């Protein structure tokens, strides 16, 4: 967070427009591993008493004290809400931690660690122990958080695969949260780049993929011949530039007092340092000096070893460098298509989730087998991207307290930065990044929004063959499923359809309604931007929307025709409604069962 918020344009201090009175009244509920209450990120210096709407408690267990920043704590694990894994402190501080200057991981990534809404309050709901987070605990946390009066729920937890909505604790909890006006933001999962791996698939959840930022951590390997190779790791150990013998092998014991060069992801406990191959493409903390090289650089290093009588070199301390390629979706970030609702694009949005520095728990170690204790640490995952979007959602709510979860959801999606298919294959399409990369400032003023209420979600569920009887129980209202509703006509800010055949000509329509939340008298014109190589024809009717007032709604239909689709890749385009000031962009994705 010492770089991620700046990267997104949410600058520090007075460089960002804030509604501090509303921000101070905003409560983020974090369902996770608890928090480290003594962290500066959760200090209550300058905070007044909790908002009047707060109905929660501080029940964090022995020696756990809340304050006017960390206003609530509940524990469902029996361990107490004190974070002993670091994860919950990291996510909570990313969403709503105080701005804490001069934080780093032993000097790496130095800057001001902060949340998206530093003046907001945090309520921690601990549901995870080191072996996992139980379904029954997660449901308890939702049951309480909704009743306690939180504004946004951030939950960086999930299963490996999508679970049917009626058996998915996050989908169930988030549904009832949505019904009470609370947006749930959830991580997409870390099972990428495999297609169909996105685990958070409900339309009432804002599902977040993870990307890189413009900062990356690199660790140089300097050879005695003067050559420098750039690897990945978060290496806080300083060998002070001293050269050591380089020895190739697989066992650390072979390399005592030397630098072990091993293709495999081993970290020697006896070697001075380890150099291996980077299979992850992002930097992680290691308990010993380490640099992970690209395959080419590693081969080059081996060539140096094989051609030199006494090869020597050193591993330098990690540097933060400018990454021109960011944002790029992380390889680990789970990909669509959605296996449960095949016509609903997931994930929804992308946010920073690689090499994020945020608060940590000194009770945990920053890496496996690490003896160090830290208050701020570096971590990667969709767990890290999720609270960034939760922070943005809360930021939007401070300016638009009356906006419903779906309006905030839509504002975040339709104002996202476009992302490109930077790699080949399905792993780098909309199935990786959804609508694109979150843009907090633009999301404040989306112009038009795709609004949804509980009834729209019920119609969507009817379309997925849930019975009226089941839906009546879920919603507590009389429900009649008419039997002719298509899930793809859910008024969602993205449009997606799965076709059963590849070669036949097809016509797919999407019915949508937009609500004007911008300027009273405004005329929006539609524009279709076809993505590279797309063989789609897209028509919008009507193609001009004249709005006379705020909150006015107007319907339109998008008709997509085509044939001969690529069975291996989705075909996509973007619909952009523009009034000259606002650009309201929705991805349109057509794919086949292939």
């Amino acid at each position, binding site marked *: 967070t010492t770089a991620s918020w700046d990267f997104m344009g949410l600058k520090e201090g007075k460089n960002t427009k804030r509604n501090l009175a509303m921000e101070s009244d905003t409560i983020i509920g974090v369902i*996770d*591993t608890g928090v480290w209450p003594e962290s500066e990120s959760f200090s209550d210096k300058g905070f007044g008493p909790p908002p009047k709407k707060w109905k929660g408690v501080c029940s964090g267990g022995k020696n756990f004290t809340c304050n006017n920043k960390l206003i609530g704590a509940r524990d469902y694990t029996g361990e107490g809400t004190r974070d002993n*894994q670091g*994860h919950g402190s990291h996510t909570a501080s990313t969403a709503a931690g105080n701005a804490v200057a001069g934080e780093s991981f032993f000097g790496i990534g130095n800057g001001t660690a902060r949340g998206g809404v530093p003046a907001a309050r945090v309520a921690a709901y601990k549901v*995870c122990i080191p*072996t*996992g*987070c*139980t*379904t*029954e*605990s*997660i*449901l*308890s946390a*939702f*049951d*309480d958080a*909704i*009743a306690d009066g939180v504004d946004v729920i951030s939950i*960086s*937890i*999930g*299963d*490996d695969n999508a679970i049917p909505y*009626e*058996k998915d*604790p*996050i989908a*169930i*909890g988030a549904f*009832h*949260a949505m*019904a*009470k006006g609370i947006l749930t933001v959830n*991580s997409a*999962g*870390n099972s990428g780049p495999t297609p169909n791996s996105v685990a958070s698939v409900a339309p009432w959840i804002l599902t977040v993929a993870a990307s890189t930022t413009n900062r990356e951590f690199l660790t140089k390997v300097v050879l005695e011949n003067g050559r420098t190779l750039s690897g990945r790791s978060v290496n806080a150990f300083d060998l002070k530039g001293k050269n050591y013998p380089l020895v190739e092998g697989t066992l650390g014991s072979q390399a005592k007092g030397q630098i072990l060069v091993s293709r495999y992801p081993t970290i020697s406990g006896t070697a001075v340092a380890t150099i291996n191959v980077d299979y992850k493409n992002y930097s992680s903390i290691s308990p010993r000096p380490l640099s992970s090289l690209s395959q080419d650089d590693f081969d080059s290093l081996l060539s140096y070893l094989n051609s030199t009588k006494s090869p020597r070199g050193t591993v330098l301390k990690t540097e933060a460098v400018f990454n021109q390629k960011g944002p790029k979706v992380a390889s680990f970030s789970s990909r669509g298509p959605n296996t449960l609702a095949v016509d609903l694009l997931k994930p929804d949005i992308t946010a920073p989730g690689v090499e994020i520095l945020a608060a940590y728990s000194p009770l945990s170690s920053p890496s496996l087998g690490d003896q160090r204790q830290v208050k701020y640490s570096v971590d990667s*995952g*969709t*767990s890290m991207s*999720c609270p960034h979007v939760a922070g943005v959602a809360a930021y939007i709510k401070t300016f638009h307290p009356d906006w419903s979860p779906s309006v905030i959801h839509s504002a975040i999606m339709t104002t996202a930065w476009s992302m490109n298919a930077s790699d080949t294959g399905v792993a780098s399409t909309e199935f990786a990044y959804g609508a694109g990369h979150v843009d907090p400032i633009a999301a404040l003023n989306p112009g038009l929004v795709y609004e949804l209420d509980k009834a729209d979600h019920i119609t969507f569920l009817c379309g997925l063959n849930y019975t009226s009887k*089941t839906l*009546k*129980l*879920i*919603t*507590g*209202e009389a429900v009649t499923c008419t039997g002719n509703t298509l899930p793809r006509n859910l008024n969602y800010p993205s449009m997606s359809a799965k076709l059963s055949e590849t070669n036949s000509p097809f016509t797919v329509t999407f019915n949508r309604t937009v609500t004007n939340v911008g300027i009273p008298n405004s005329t929006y014109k539609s524009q279709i931007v076809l993505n590279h190589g797309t063989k789609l024809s897209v028509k919008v009717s009507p193609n001009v929307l004249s709005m006379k007032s705020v909150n006015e709604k107007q319907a339109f239909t998008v008709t997509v025709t085509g044939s001969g689709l690529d069975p291996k890749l989705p075909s996509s385009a973007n619909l952009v409604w523009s009034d000259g000031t606002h650009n309201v962009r929705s991805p349109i994705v057509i794919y086949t069962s292939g």
Partner: protein
Amino acid sequence: TDDRQDKQVYVVYMGSLPSRPDYTPMSNHLSILQEVTGESSITGRLVRSYKRSFNGFAARLTESEREQVAEMEGVVSVFPNKKLQLQ
């Protein structure tokens, strides 16, 4: 068959909380448990009761009890208490 070894924790999801003023979720959950177990004392069976924002409970059930609960009026779904992971 009613040995504790044969029971596992299941979540019984019952949807929204009924708006009837006389509805008390906890007693409803306990009576469901009593009905399916046939036991007057269900000590140790009820793990959680969801009663503030939605309706349901978590309980230790045998497979046949799980099947019985799943068929009951007012129950949306019954599913095992599995572990999800931090991401």
